[in-house]
């Protein structure tokens, strides 16, 4: 749509407002995860020894690998916006597809990580877990809830980005109008920030 068309048909658009709305939504996400981080900090404070022992069972290598994957996916998301700003549609689509691919990589790692834990009988409500000391039960409870909720956010992010990719291909998202892609990006980066805190708190307790 060029400027002339706008002059005839007035299309109401408020990109700043749209981004503000997204940020406000992200604050509610902060409350959701913030509450869980409160729980984590108090339980860890009360059960320091047992949290240390339990955390040793997590695979630091998979955790580090997933951190790198998620950070890289944040990069490709940011690059896809930079590309559309420069009117480079195919490059933007490429970066969005790459972001989705990396997200799947993250989820596949998570799947294997959880599968191994389940295989060892460490899952919520399992006999082996319930026979452990209280602090370790709490650690694994929080581990499954927090990384699980985070994983759910990754899945939602993938769906959102996939929709944006479609809209970019159709030309709805373009050089002059890309606030939708920006908002999906904001969501994705928040998911990244949450992982930035989850990673050291669960995988790196020595």
């Amino acid at each position: 749509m060029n400027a002339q068309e706008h002059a005839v048909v007035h299309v109401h658009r408020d990109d700043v407002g749209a981004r503000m709305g997204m940020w406000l939504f992200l604050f509610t996400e902060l409350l959701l995860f913030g509450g869980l981080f409160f729980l984590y900090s108090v339980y860890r404070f009360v059960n320091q020894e047992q949290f240390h022992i339990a955390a040793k069972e997590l695979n630091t290598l998979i955790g580090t690998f997933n951190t790198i994957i998620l950070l890289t996916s944040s990069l490709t998301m940011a690059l896809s916006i930079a590309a559309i700003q420069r009117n480079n549609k195919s490059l933007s689509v490429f970066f969005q597809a790459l972001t989705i691919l990396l997200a799947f990589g993250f989820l596949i790692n998570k799947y294997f990580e959880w599968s191994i834990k389940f295989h060892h009988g460490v899952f919520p409500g399992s006999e082996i877990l319930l026979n452990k000391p209280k602090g370790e039960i709490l650690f694994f409870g929080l581990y499954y809830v927090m990384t699980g909720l985070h994983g759910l956010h990754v899945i939602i992010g993938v769906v959102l980005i996939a929709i944006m990719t479609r809209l970019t291909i159709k030309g709805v998202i373009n050089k002059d109008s890309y606030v939708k892609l920006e908002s999906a990006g904001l969501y994705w980066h928040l998911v990244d920030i949450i992982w930035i805190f989850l990673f050291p708190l669960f995988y790196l307790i020595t």
Partner: protein
Amino acid sequence: MEKHDSTAEHKEHGYGIYILVWLGLLALTGVTVAVAGINFGGITVATALLVASVKSFLVLKIFMHLGAEQKTFKIFVLVALSFIIISFVLLFSDYSFI
């Protein structure tokens, strides 16, 4: 039309800065993992949280374009983060004395 150009005008980061930030984030991840291997006791947790905060700051400022955003956005984020920190302080003013 008036407001509508705001996206176009307000930020156009180059590809380079994003790659630079990404490299920084990877380096900081390396620092966290390395520091976790050494046992500093209580300082280890503090270091991990400090590094995570620096990483989040980079993501917020560059990837999420907060640096180029209007002042209102920055104030909103600061208020939200302040409340999280206040809640943590109040929480531990209680729990530290158990």
